[in-house]
């Protein structure tokens, strides 16, 4: 019985963490898989979302002084996304209008965001929202006395993730969404279709970074605090999840591919939780994510290579025979 309870609570925290991660994975799905841009500003943008969200939830953000406290948790999500979108806009500006290579643009913005984040926290190393309402405390109040009480965080997160998935699914079927996909696929074709690839790149990076910041903000509200380093390594964790999801749902329709991103995040978190149970120290999380990314890229590479070599050596053998 005790074992079952442990398992249940482990499953619950895996779900919570996995669902938050999955928003970043969906963000990268748009920028990395669709637009074909590796956006390395993810870590900083995640922290930006966490910190802006934290400050808004506390009511310490500009414009927030007179606002009713019940609204703050929701404004927190909104402002985090807005600032995320602005950060994405900056990344796209650097790479489309200022001739900076897309990897470098992400890195430069990521570094700059550290200072921005510190400035938003007014120099203090941590935002604590322990004494303020969050979307999670509000739902807990709502579900008080019902069996859903323990699972309220999972329910909120699942709802948000589902909304984002549905949005992406329909968005990617619109002309704008298709144009973003085409920009990642063949930008000569996009120009020939009278669509400006600078516009599609900008829109995609704004949307994608607003999701990353949303993930950061939810993490801040969930853990009731944020610091300037919350984002560190998030891009690799999200990429690892994305690649896991991709291997499961490679040759399927768009809906399943999007769903696969959530599955990837959950699988990644499960593997990590299991590893922790086997006494892997928590600080190994980042090494594990790096390893998964390396393997997810290396394994298909080496199998394709050896398959080719085998094919040709067999051909040679049959010729010699």
């Amino acid at each position, binding site marked *: 019985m005790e074992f079952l309870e442990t398992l249940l609570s482990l499953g619950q925290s895996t779900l919570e963490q996995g669902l938050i991660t999955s928003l970043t994975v969906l963000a990268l799905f748009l920028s990395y898989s669709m637009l074909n841009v590796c956006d390395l500003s993810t870590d900083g943008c995640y922290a930006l979302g966490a910190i802006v969200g934290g400050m808004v939830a506390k009511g310490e953000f500009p414009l927030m002084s007179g606002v009713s406290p019940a609204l703050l948790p929701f404004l927190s999500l909104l402002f985090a996304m807005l600032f995320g979108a602005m950060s994405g806009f900056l990344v796209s500006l650097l790479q489309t209008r200022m001739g900076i290579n897309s990897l470098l643009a992400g890195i430069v913005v990521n570094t700059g965001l550290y200072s921005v984040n510190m400035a938003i926290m007014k120099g203090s190393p941590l935002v604590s929202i322990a004494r303020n309402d969050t979307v999670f405390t509000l739902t807990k109040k709502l579900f008080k006395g019902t069996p859903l009480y323990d699972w309220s965080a999972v329910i909120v997160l699942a709802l948000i993730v589902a909304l984002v998935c549905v949005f992406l699914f329909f968005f990617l*079927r*619109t*002309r*704008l969404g*298709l*144009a973003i*996909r*085409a920009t*990642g*696929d*063949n930008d*000569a*074709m*996009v*120009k*020939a*279709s*009278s*669509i*400006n*690839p600078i516009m599609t790149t900008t829109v995609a990076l704004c949307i994608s970074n607003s999701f990353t910041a949303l993930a950061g903000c939810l993490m801040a509200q969930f853990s009731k605090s944020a610091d300037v380093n919350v984002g560190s390594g998030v891009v690799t964790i999200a990429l690892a999840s994305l690649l896991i999801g991709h291997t499961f749902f490679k040759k399927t329709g768009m809906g399943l591919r999007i769903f696969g991103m959530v599955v990837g995040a959950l699988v990644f978190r499960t593997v990590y939780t299991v590893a922790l149970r086997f006494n892997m120290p928590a600080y190994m999380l980042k090494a594990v994510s790096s390893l998964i990314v390396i393997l997810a890229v290396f394994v298909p590479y080496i199998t394709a290579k050896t398959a080719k070599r085998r094919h040709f050596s067999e051909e040679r053998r049959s010729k010699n025979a």
Partner: protein
Amino acid sequence: MLDIRNVSLTFDPGTMDEKKAIRNLSFHADKGEFITVIGANGAGKSTLFSVISGGNRVDCGQILLDGNDITNVPEHIRSRRIGRLFQDPMKGSAPGMTIEENLFLAAGHGGWFAGVSKSDRERFRERLSALGMGLEDRMNHKVGLLSGGQRQALTLIMATLNPPDLLLLDEHTAALDPGTAEKVLKVTSDIVRENKLTCMMITHNMQSALDLGTRTVMMDHGNIILDYSGDERAHLTVNDLMKSFREKSGAALNNDRMLLS
């Protein structure tokens, strides 16, 4: 309708690889003309198309479309009026997307948030079936799965879904087998005729350069050296063409030598 005035284009200027691809070229095309463009490899034919459609900016000179100066208009704006098929069949369509999605983007109808509608689908089917390649039954296949020839044919449909004012075809049948090439050429001239398009078509096939269209120009060393139309063109044979090319380009060569000595 199209006016090119003293245009030059240099690749990699100021480097060791500097290459003058277009040299002080002037050219005028009237509305409704179907011009075939011939010339040796490296003569600058593809570069000329790229200059017209905005893929490359010129060093100097002017390009006018219906009297409007488009010299500094970006490519994606020019493409509203100028359709283009690339020499490379892979360039004209997005391989990771379906035939339907490619056509939908090319059609450019509806707002940014519109999706593929039933009537779109019917229109695409109808246009594809004109090719006789069975593509209309593969609307949900990824374009990357098509052969080079099928992709080029699809690009032709994409470029003419909204009939452009000027259609540029860069050896668009070079990658196709003879049978398919003939079919695509037939569809091409049908589309051009039905929509009364102004069209320029690059080809290495001298015979079809003379058979198709209303005018033939020859390029060499970044310029237009021969220009035939009307009666003169009607009586021209491939042999005449070869002969005058040798005379003309030989003369150009001699001129260069004289300049050097």
